[in-house]
């Protein structure tokens, strides 16, 4: 009986894994991570999906909401915000995703280019946007109207809402060295975190500790904050791992401006990127540089928030980090060992932002060529006739 079972184990790895899951030899999570990593490795420009161009200027930022993984929010240099329904015409062979709603130069809307849009993590009915016109606006999605405006009197480069915390604070990164926290509940500023000496280009909340905040600045430092403390700066990360005091002036995270931060989904690591064309992985438990070498392919030179994207972590498979390099490609690295897995090319514009759609393992990228592109795992069964035509070699006999 047993030998009979083993004999009919399929040789194909996928089907074998399915079979093994079925009879309980492997855990379902293993199967899941296997498929996830397989699909991630197959990632390429999705030829069947087109997102209609709406922005008349560079798309600066995009975000996909976490609740349903369905709605894409995009903000452009033209000050417009659009929402796309990604499940539109999902079943069709050629998917054209049209804009569902938009806020185009409304009176209450932004007057300058939009630097960052974020869905409110707990409800699709609200999203926030920051702009170079020095305001942060909170929007009612259904009415596409501004619900609340925070005026920071400085260019706002980025803002963040904690996806975990219930405190409802918006951390802001502006050309003011102080990080100010806006309270959604009261509509007022609650904190002002001093410490940086230059423009703050990025802020991120930790997904693990609700009061932990990370920020990166043009003063080349990355600082961690605990907003509950009165002397709130916990430490300034040091790339050289010296035993200097945590708030030493000598601690620098990069040799040049830091313009991107990303927590890993488990909140144990922090990825930072800077104009020194480097990406660094920090261990948040020790606060030390892991010294992972991501190679020399990275290009990063613009004073913008440029956030890398980290794929979901699942046991038994590697985690990938996607880096929107300035040479119009997306670099896909293995997060922990730093090896370049894949280079996604094909965009005609510099990629400014990435968004992850967890349900379909798709990546969406915003570019300064006014376009939003969809990158998906290679789909074998789509449009087979055309594919066959394209796959064919047509050498003539005379050659």
């Amino acid at each position, binding site marked *: 009986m047993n030998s009979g079972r083993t004999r009919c184990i399929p040789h194909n790895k996928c089907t074998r894994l399915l079979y093994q899951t079925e009879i309980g030899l492997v855990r379902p999570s293993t199967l899941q991570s296997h498929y996830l990593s397989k699909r991630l490795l197959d990632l390429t420009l999705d030829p069947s999906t087109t997102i209609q161009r709406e922005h008349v200027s560079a798309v600066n930022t995009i975000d996909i909401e976490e609740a349903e993984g369905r709605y894409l929010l995009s903000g452009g240099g033209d000050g417009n915000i659009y929402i796309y329904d990604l499940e539109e015409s999902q079943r069709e062979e050629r998917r054209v995703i049209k804009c569902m709603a938009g806020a185009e130069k409304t009176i209450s809307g932004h007057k300058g280019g939009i630097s960052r849009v974020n869905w409110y993590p707990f409800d699709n009915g609200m999203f926030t946007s920051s702009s170079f016109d020095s305001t942060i606006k909170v929007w009612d999605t259904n009415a596409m109207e501004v619900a609340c405006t925070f005026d920071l009197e400085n260019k706002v480069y980025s803002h963040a809402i904690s996806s975990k915390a219930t405190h409802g604070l918006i951390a802001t990164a502006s050309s003011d060295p102080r990080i100010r926290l806006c309270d959604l509940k009261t509509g007022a500023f609650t904190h002002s975190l001093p410490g940086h000496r230059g423009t703050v280009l990025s802020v991120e909340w930790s997904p693990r500790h609700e009061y932990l905040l990370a920020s990166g600045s043009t003063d080349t430092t990355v600082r961690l904050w605990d907003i509950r403390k009165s002397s709130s700066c916990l430490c300034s990360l040091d790339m050289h791992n010296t035993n200097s005091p945590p708030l030493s002036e000598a601690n620098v995270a990069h040799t040049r401006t830091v313009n991107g931060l990303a927590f890993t989904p488990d909140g144990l690591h922090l990825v930072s990127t800077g104009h020194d064309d480097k990406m660094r992985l920090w261990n948040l438990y020790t606060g030390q540089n892991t010294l992972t070498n991501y190679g020399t392919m990275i290009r990063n030179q613009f004073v913008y928030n440029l956030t890398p994207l980290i794929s979901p972590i699942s046991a038994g498979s590697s985690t990938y980090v996607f880096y929107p390099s300035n040479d119009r490609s997306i670099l896909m690295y293995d997060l922990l060992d730093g090896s370049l897995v894949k280079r996604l090319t094909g965009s*005609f514009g510099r990629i400014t932002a990435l968004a992850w759609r967890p349900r379909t393992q798709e990546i969406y990228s915003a570019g300064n060529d006014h376009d939003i592109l969809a990158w998906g795992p290679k789909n074998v069964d789509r449009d087979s006739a055309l594919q066959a035509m394209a796959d064919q070699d047509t050498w003539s006999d005379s050659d």
Partner: protein
Amino acid sequence: MAMNLEAREALSTLILAITKTGDLYLDPEQVKQVKSICKKSDVNVRTAYDLLMIQLKRKHAQIRYSSTQLIAELFQRSHVFRELLVADYPIFLQLTVGIHQHPLPPPVVFAEKTKKLAISLTNEWHAKYGPVYKQIALGYEFLRYHLKVDFTNLVPVTDEARSAEQKAQEELSRRIRQRKYEKAAVEIEEMSDDIQDNVRKMGSCFDILVPKLDDESALNAIFGAPNGSNNDKEQDTQDGDNENEDSKMDIDDSDIAEQEAAWQQYDPMGVHDNALGTNRYKLTINVNKDNPVEVLESEDNAEVFTTLRECYRLIVKKHWPKVTEWMDVLMKADHEPGEQRAEYDRLLKKVIDLKKSVADAKGKSEDLGVNMDTMYGPHEQDSDEDDGELEEVEVTTTNSIKNNLKSKGKQPVKNQQRPVLTKTKNSVFLMHGQDILEDDPTYAGGTYVTPVRAVARPDTSKAKDVGSTHAPEGEETREELLARAPLVPWDDDLAVWDKKDMAFNTSGLEYSHRFLGVGDGSNLVSQDTLDRMKMRTRIYNPELPKEIKACRFPMSNGRLCMRRDLIRCPYHGPVVPRDELGQIQLSPEDGGFVRPGEEELDDEQEAALIERAIAAAAAPSSSLSSSASSGRPASGKAKSKDTSTWEDIEDDVHLALGLEKIEVPRKRGQGVKKKKPAKPPSALVNLSKPVDSSRARLLRRVASKASKDSVTQDERIEKSSSSRDARLNRWQ
């Protein structure tokens, strides 16, 4: 699959060779070789791709252009190549179109060409592979949206696109033909009855106007009944003009009967009736080809003619063009077998019949004198359509010409031309420049003086009778003499040419010189002066040949020398007649050269010719040339014939002008040294060579040593003078 080193080597040399020629078109042989290597394995395709991308990245538009062409070839063929190129599509467009602020390198012409080619390629690839390769679609969109590239009206560059376009074109023309055919079919059904009606109408008109041969009564009218021609003996059988109805109308019937009876008595055989003595004669009636039936229009048949004209107008203006058009359409239409075919055949037959009948009717009415000119009536010549504003604007000559044309045959032709001037004047004394004057419309011909002197030979006496046409015995007549007399343009010498002596005072009054007194008696012009008066000045006008023959010496590149020289080509020697291959045509008798169409020139003549031409060119009055030429030996020239170069011609000229021959110092070994077999030159533009810009030219002038020196000199002078001045003004 292991990398085949040999294939890689071959590919690398081939691709280098292809891209470095710089030509507009790739060598098909080499492209074929590349393809055959790539066909063997995908590894080779990858190698080719890498090599091509390296070439594409070179900063030279010509190399990029060739590379792009080769890429297009391989893209069409290989899937692997497509995958590779599509992954790097933004870079490809960067290098070929110049997106992302990467301008294309010089030369500008090729940069433009590369750009155009890449845009066309993107357009075609987008049409074919756009749905599969997103990058191409994105690139297409990028070009359209950001660079505002117009993708319409692009010339197809790949073979596939070209053939597709051709097919579409054919399909379009086929559809047009089909539509025309359908339209014509409907029209034929609609109009054929009209046309046939019209033709029938014309037919009845003809029946009325022209007697038919099977019409007994009409024939009798012509042949049977005696008519007016019986009275006189003239026979008009040669032309059958008298077969018209009208001519017999005026003959009185009773009169005829009387005469018939009278004739019957002494003409039993009916000689008079038939104009023949016997019935056995063969009668030949020649019908006038130009006008076989002449039916004159009269009041009686005016109505018929009017109808006929109307019908004819209809035919000429409407039916005939229509029928020809149908014919055209039907001939061109595609006819597939089946039901369509039968219908088509039916229509074709119908149209052919129609055409025939219409042509027939048209011809007949033209025979009756109803033609294009007279279709608006016999007398009113001006058609109501033809004349309009145009007619009035035009000068009257067109009118008269038109009248001339229209009144052909029917109306008496007026002599519209200006009466030709009859040459009454003596042509010996043609006025100088008369021929030019005659073309002048304002010239009235001058006043003629009746010739008082007969032209005579110098030896005949001047006392010759002017008016006499009958010359004395043994002497030539005036006409004969005139025929022999030379024709010379007028000049002063003609006034005295036959004079032996001439008096300078013919007034009859005797007067003397104021100081010298009365002369020695003979008041005649001296012989010397008279001789000089008989001379005339002539300006030699060397005639240049109208057509200068090409040298046609066979050159090394397989063509014939196209230089056109009078006598000698500076590179290939004397110009001699040659055949198509450039071989010298030998004359049959002496093996020398023959100039076709010209007299044979011997060496002397040729030499003289050369000398004359040179002398005329260099110094028209030079008498030196003739003396120099006479002393020149012909044999020396013959020798130099073969080794003629520029120097020979130079020598000729110098000799003719009496100058020294120039001795050119020859370089050592020249002439012996052979040229190296030249490497096939690459058409690549040398970009490292500095461009001759205005800045460079200015720099050359400004930064030259001489100008710099002059500037420093000026500066020094200025400095010293200023210091001198300073010292000058220092008083203490």
